[in-house]
């Protein structure tokens, strides 16, 4: 009887010790975390004082971003006509001169994303397929994987800077950069898709007496056809967003308009441009997601509302990705 009680008390003591150790560990982690965070803040020069000091200026700018006006002459609302005037003036969308369409900046941006994606696909296919361990035997596949890693380690914006001697500061250079970026990113996604291929169908194709290239194409690639299309559409979305940011360094299109207007402190015009960017990116995503859900067999695609709500986050991501 007494030994039982002893054992229970022992167990209790052990649990308490374990708990204290855990608590101590948590505190150490928390202190370390706080230390890193404060250091990070001081490193970037974060200051509440600055925010307070410049707050009036920011609210002034907000007034420019959203010029006050009225809707139907009564309801207070943003003065949309000022946006529209700028969109027309700089031809952000589409204009007609003597009945001929003149494509606006939005088409330049889309063209960069689209052409860049298409240019990158062959390279992505080659690198992606050869990078898979199931196609190229183990140490050698890392030649291709490594190539893709190097490409991905350099952001698209930096690729554009690298290509400037080749094509100048132009949409052409931006397209080359997007194409290069696509080779790395899409290729990596292809490799990953290939890793998840099932062995069975490959073996079945092998059992028919097929040769190795036939095994790769019919046994493996035919299994990942749908994911490949889906990933390509996904990369197209990202590339259109990158196309916007390319403009910020002078790559043309909507991004460049945005950059120019920022330099002129014309915040109303900036917001008009942002609205067009918003429209472009959401349209591309909407179409892409419909296509993806269609080829995946009519799964429910993301709703338009969700696309709009999550827009700022994705836009931000495309700058550093």
């Amino acid at each position, binding site marked *: 009887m007494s030994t039982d009680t002893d054992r229970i008390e022992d167990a209790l003591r052990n649990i308490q010790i374990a708990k204290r150790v855990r608590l101590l560990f948590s505190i150490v982690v928390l202190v370390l975390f706080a230390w890193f965070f404060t250091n990070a803040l001081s490193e970037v020069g974060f200051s509440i004082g600055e925010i307070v000091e410049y707050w009036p200026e920011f609210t002034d700018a907000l007034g420019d971003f959203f010029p006050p006006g009225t809707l139907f002459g009564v309801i207070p609302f943003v003065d949309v006509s000022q946006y529209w005037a700028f969109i027309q003036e700089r031809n952000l969308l589409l204009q007609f001169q003597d009945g001929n369409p003149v494509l606006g900046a939005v088409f330049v941006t889309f063209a960069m994303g689209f052409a860049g994606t298409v240019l990158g696909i062959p390279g992505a296919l080659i690198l992606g397929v050869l990078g898979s361990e199931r196609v190229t035997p183990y140490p050698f596949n890392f030649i291709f994987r490594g190539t893709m890693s190097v490409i991905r380690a350099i952001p698209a914006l930096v690729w554009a800077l690298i290509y400037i001697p080749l094509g100048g500061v132009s949409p052409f250079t931006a397209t080359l950069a997007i194409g290069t970026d696509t080779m790395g990113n899409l290729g990596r996604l292809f490799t990953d898709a290939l890793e998840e291929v099932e062995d069975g169908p490959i073996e079945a194709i092998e059992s028919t*007496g097929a040769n190795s290239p036939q095994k790769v194409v019919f046994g493996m690639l035919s299994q990942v056809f749908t994911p490949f299309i889906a990933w390509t559409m996904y990369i197209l979305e990202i590339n259109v967003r990158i196309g916007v940011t390319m403009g910020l360094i002078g790559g043309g299109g909507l991004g460049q308009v945005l950059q120019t207007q920022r330099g002129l402190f014309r915040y109303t015009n900036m917001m008009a441009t942002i609205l067009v960017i918003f429209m472009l990116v959401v349209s591309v995503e909407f179409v892409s997601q419909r296509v993806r859900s269609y080829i995946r067999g009519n799964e429910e695609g993301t709703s338009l509302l969700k696309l709009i709500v999550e827009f700022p986050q994705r836009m931000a991501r495309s700058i550093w990705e």
Partner: protein
Amino acid sequence: MSTIEVTNLSKSYGDVTALDDVSFTIPDGEFVVVLGQSGAGKSTLLRCLNGITRPTSGSITIDDANVMGPRNDVAMIFQQHYILGQMSAYSNALTGALGRTSFLGSLLGMYDGDDKQEALRALETVGLLDEANQRAGKMSGGQQQRVGIARALVQNPNLLLADEPVASLDPASAETVMRYIRDAADERDLTTIASLHQVNIAREFGERFIGMKDGQIVFDGYREDFNVDVIDRIYGDIETEAIREEQTDEPPENNAAATSGARSHEY
């Protein structure tokens, strides 16, 4: 249409012996059913016959030619059918002709005209001609397995192997699929080796039976010798009580006919 000779075949994976000194001869055109528990070595035996798996020792000859690797004239039907869900039933059947088509030709879909006809004939054999253009991934389990049979038939095999072809199907689909396999084998006079789990299906379709246990052959004989004692020897004393009772009540032939009545439910 071929004679298979297996001599002292052994296969081990590390310490595990999957096949232990297996020998048998199968003459032309026989329909052989291999029975045994999971892990008895059925799959390994079939994979060795197909050439996907290399045996540790012993030899397999098909019409006096040694099996060195996968060949176009030895066709295999897999338990999980392993067809390509993204492609149509027709394209799947055509992959059976890959072994006699050049890489570029197969890539561009430039198969021989005869092969295309062959693919459609095979789909007709398994009752899927009207579904030829359907995406295989959208078909039912039974239909997918039949596409797998069609692919095997397009290989124009001399030897048809089926590795538990109906193990993942419901009883009704299992009957249908087995019937298609046997009809195809009869029609083309194919030597067929099928491994099966279900004793009742084996009894219905088999001509000759090979029973395996722990990688060894514990029974090799024809219909008349395949009785409950043999089943006990293969599987141990499980599951056979009901069959033993049935057998004392009525002859097994009637029993088999009763089971096949379930077939009409599927399509």
